[in-house]
């Protein structure tokens, strides 16, 4: 027979179901007979229940820390999908010695951003056959039968360097993102790699079609459906621009192959407007830099 003292010592084993069957049975028998022990076990249970009511820590992370974690996530997710090693982007500040800690992003970093602004900052044209669907389109196969090989369209965009960046800023990573694109119901495929190449220009002109590339095409990640991540690793281009003291960075974004000749239209819409008017914020640039 279990004593009341035994009952208190075994209470958690009982509630956790860890007592052997015969012991559990005699535990229950004692409980049935002893109001004090029933009260004890009930209070223990109520204590555990009350613990669930404790308020969570008021501040999980302070805003700066949260932002640096978010920055790390953004760059690593883009980098992961780009098929590059995390270390190659999220590593030490430029020129710095390697860090002993295996979490290189654990240092103080911050994300600074900019987006395309103004009428001159994003140029493209509507591919033939897609008139009326806006500007800033990529296309492969064309729905216009006069262009059986497809009609390549490129985007030219200018992004101001975020104000926080100066000549001494260490850039961990730079990601160009196209957050609000749509395929207008015409999924694109087989267009080869999507590239964001750094070029330099004063104003948009058709001559830019073959403009010399400053920094080699950085691979982009392209989702297969609307809303998937569409991001380009432009770290090299941003570092280049900082190095030569430019206050903006410019890109030509295009697919390697305009037409895939699979017989269906491929379309990527950046600007849903029906005119050629450019909407600011279609292209974003996130740069992860070492915090001051």
């Amino acid at each position: 027979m279990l004593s009341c003292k035994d009952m208190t010592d075994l209470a958690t084993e009982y509630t956790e179901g860890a007592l052997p069957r015969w012991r559990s049975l005699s535990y229950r028998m004692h409980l049935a007979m002893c109001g004090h022990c029933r009260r004890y076990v009930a209070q223990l249970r109520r204590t555990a229940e009350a613990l669930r009511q404790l308020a969570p820590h008021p501040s999980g992370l302070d805003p700066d820390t949260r932002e640096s974690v978010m920055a790390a996530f953004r760059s690593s997710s883009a980098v992961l999908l780009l098929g590059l090693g995390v270390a190659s982007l999220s590593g030490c500040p430029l020129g710095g010695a390697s860090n002993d800690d295996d979490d290189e992003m654990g240092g103080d970093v911050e994300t600074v951003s900019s987006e395309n602004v103004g009428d001159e900052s994003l140029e493209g044209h509507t591919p033939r056959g897609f008139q009326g669907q806006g500007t800033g389109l990529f296309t492969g196969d064309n729905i216009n039968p006069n262009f059986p090989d497809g009609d390549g369209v490129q985007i030219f965009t200018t992004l101001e360097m975020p104000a926080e960046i100066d000549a001494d800023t260490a850039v961990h990573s730079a990601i160009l993102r196209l957050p609000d694109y749509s395929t207008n119901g015409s999924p694109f495929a087989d267009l080869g790699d999507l590239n964001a190449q750094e070029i330099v220009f004063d104003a948009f002109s058709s001559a830019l079609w073959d403009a010399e590339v400053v920094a080699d095409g950085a691979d982009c990640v392209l989702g297969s459906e609307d809303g998937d991540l569409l991001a380009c690793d432009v770290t090299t281009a941003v570092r280049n621009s900082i190095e030569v003291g430019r206050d903006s960075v410019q890109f030509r974004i295009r697919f390697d192959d305009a037409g895939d000749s699979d017989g269906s239209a491929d379309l990527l819409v950046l600007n849903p407007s029906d005119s050629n008017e450019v909407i600011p914020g279609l292209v974003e640039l996130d740069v992860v830099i070492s915090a001051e």
Partner: protein
Amino acid sequence: MATLLSPDHEILPRLKAGDEGAFVELLDAWSPSLRRLARNFVKTEALAEEVVQETWMGVIKGISRFEGRSSLKTWVFTILANRARTRGTRESRSLPLSALGDPERSGAVDPDRFLANGAWGEPPFVWRAQSAESVVRARESLSVLEKALAALPDRQRRVVVLRDVEGVDAVDVCNVLEISESNQRVLLHRGRSKLRAALEKHYQGADDESERSRAVAH
């Protein structure tokens, strides 16, 4: 504290695909819990926050390799426990030897409250306060609980926080803290017993007080 969050099978693919919304959901839902748990390993709030930050960095780094053998939450908590242990050990090198001892009493209840035959001499007090004036009392008793929790020995507190505050399964607690099941049960029992005793003392004091005020009013 219960947090509403998408189930693993929904959020995990999104996380692996780099879905920022999914990550934000996780970050905001679990950071407070992680911070509370971290605080059980390290001495200062600042260090606890660092540990939580390191944990998320570890999650970001490891998410593509996470295969879902444990729940996502258990995996994240395990990363935290590992980071925190490293930090905790690093920190505790400067602790005096006396601080390393764990002067735990073995019984769940003060042995003086039992008769020689092990039957109750001084049985558990009735917690009347639960029903009367419950709103104010509940808040008070939660703060009593919070203090008593803080006063528990580290190992007991970690188990109680994971099991009772965070609602993590026994098996997962064992994995996160790298302890055996029986060890987990013993630590949980000792922790809960002390917290029950603290509540009992609180309610008893409160009842004595209201008895006294009633007596004065008469």
